[in-house]
């Protein structure tokens, strides 16, 4: 009896072992394409940038070397420091504006629209422009803000100003306006997502306990919305610090950002100089993101 029972067990063992080992490697096989693509087009290029940032160069080519002059050029120049400060200034202003607008838009959608269908329709209305070309959306401000644009001609026509306002287009004002226009959705979406997950009975409980509307907002809703705000902040801050096109197009070349400086160095084939700038910018961005990630665990928020 015992022998007869053991025999099939022995026969089945190798099959079971094979299936076990196959299922053990499955996650590795499944994640391999992602790992390969990110390794080849993200990790390798960044390592290459770090290496090249120590190289020597002239007007024609780069030469492998170990120089720190690229970094001393970056960190030793007053112009570079001003450009970095300007970039951080844009990031701070755009962050504050998108956070304010994004929160109230998300709050309106999550707490004041009564049906889910209407919420989705209005959310889509906000989303659609963000799936169209960034440059087209920048250009679309020209007929509005320009010297003879809609705003100026209306103001002049109404007699509010004697002559067109010059600082509407091709100015830092235009840069900030266009960036808010381009990036607010990156704040609306994560905040909307966290607000939708707030249990409405928490709000009712706070009301029953005698909290006023502002107290509910300040002590219940905003603390619960913080993870969404943090994710939105990561998006907006990294997008603004990396921006060169908005700064170039909307300031008409009168303002600078780190990425624009890099782009100019690249067009002059000064790759090692651009690489040194890239390393400094990357450290700055990663420090900011690490700081935000200390506040919120995004893996848990998904």
């Amino acid at each position: 009896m015992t022998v007869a029972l053991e025999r099939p067990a022995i026969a089945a063992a190798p099959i079971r072992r094979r299936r076990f080992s196959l299922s053990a490697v499955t996650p590795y096989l499944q994640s391999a394409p992602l790992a390969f693509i990110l390794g080849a087009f993200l990790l390798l290029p960044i390592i290459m940038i770090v290496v090249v940032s120590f190289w020597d160069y002239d007007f024609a080519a780069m030469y492998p070397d170990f120089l720190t002059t690229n970094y001393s050029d970056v960190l030793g120049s007053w112009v570079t420091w001003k450009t970095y400060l300007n970039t951080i200034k844009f990031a701070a202003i755009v962050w504050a504006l998108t956070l304010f607008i994004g929160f109230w838009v998300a709050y309106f959608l999550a707490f004041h629209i009564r049906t889910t269908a209407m919420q989705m329709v209005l959310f889509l209305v906000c989303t659609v422009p963000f799936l169209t070309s960034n440059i087209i959306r920048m250009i679309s401000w020209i007929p509005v803000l320009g010297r003879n644009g809609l705003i100026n001609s209306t103001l002049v026509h109404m007699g509010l100003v004697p002559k067109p306002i010059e600082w509407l287009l091709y100015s830092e004002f235009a840069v900030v306006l266009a960036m808010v226009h381009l990036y607010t959705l990156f704040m609306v979406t994560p905040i909307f997502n966290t607000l939708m997950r707030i249990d409405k009975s928490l709000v009712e409980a706070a009301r029953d306990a005698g909290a006023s509307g502002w107290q509910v907002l300040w002590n219940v809703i905003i603390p619960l919305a913080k993870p969404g705000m943090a994710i939105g902040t990561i998006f907006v801050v990294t997008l603004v610090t990396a921006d060169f096109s908005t700064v170039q197009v909307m300031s008409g070349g009168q303002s600078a950002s780190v990425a624009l400086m890099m782009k100019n160095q690249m067009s002059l084939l000064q790759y090692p100089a651009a690489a040194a700038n890239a390393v400094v910018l990357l450290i700055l961005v990663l420090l900011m993101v690490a700081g935000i990630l200390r506040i919120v665990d995004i893996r848990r928020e998904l």
Partner: protein
Amino acid sequence: MSHEKRTFEFYVLAAFFALFVLFLYGPLSAILILSFQGETGGLTFPLNGVSLHWFANLFERQAVGDFGGSFERSLVLGLMVMVVTVIVSLLAGLAFRRKFRGATALFYLAIASLVVPSIIISLGIGVVFQQIGFRPAWYTSAFGAHLTWTLPFGVLIMFAVFNRFSPAYEEAARDLGATSWQTFVHVVLPMIAPSLIGVGLFGFTLSYDEFARTLMTSGTFNTLPLEIYGMTTNVTTPVLYALGTVTTVFSFLVILATLGAIVYVGRRRARA
């Protein structure tokens, strides 16, 4: 809250929301109108008559760069990026359902891909290709550069989808005798199909509109956004708006088709 009367707060916020929507759509509609500018009209209002002159101008090859060719390249590149993004994100999403060595590192690598400034990726890939001796081209280096932007979105969406996906359905299928492949095709795939379509839309539109990453990686031939970017500095006629109108209408059609597909899949599932 739905039984309460509309408060003062509601009207203030509704007005704020309406202003926000106007802010989003106002400038876009301005260039939509101005692209029908008469032949003698300029870049701003008023309209000097209505014509299709600037659209005709757009399709003359010599007039404004290579619109047809760059559109074709952007379209093909967008479709390539879309297919790869959907497949690779789905596989990675399945992988992340289980614990494996390096999972956390890979997840943070995907997040890093999202936050690393695009011009740095552009520069890095450009330099790597130069050092290896490969010629950058829109279908190799720019393709990879776009994937570093679309994949994190796809992976995050799949991650969120599978976080909420109950394994009970798969267990039920297995109890009824389905193989793991049958379970995947007949149970998991139909349930996540709308999210996959969403990932596809992200993959296509992000690639179709991307240009900071394409800047150093496109090689000899421009993609459409690069072509438009070049035009902003040297074209001063409403042909720029005509181009804007054409690409925006195309984007809207893509979005509508996607939403239609999601609704269709949802209906078919409801009926089944």
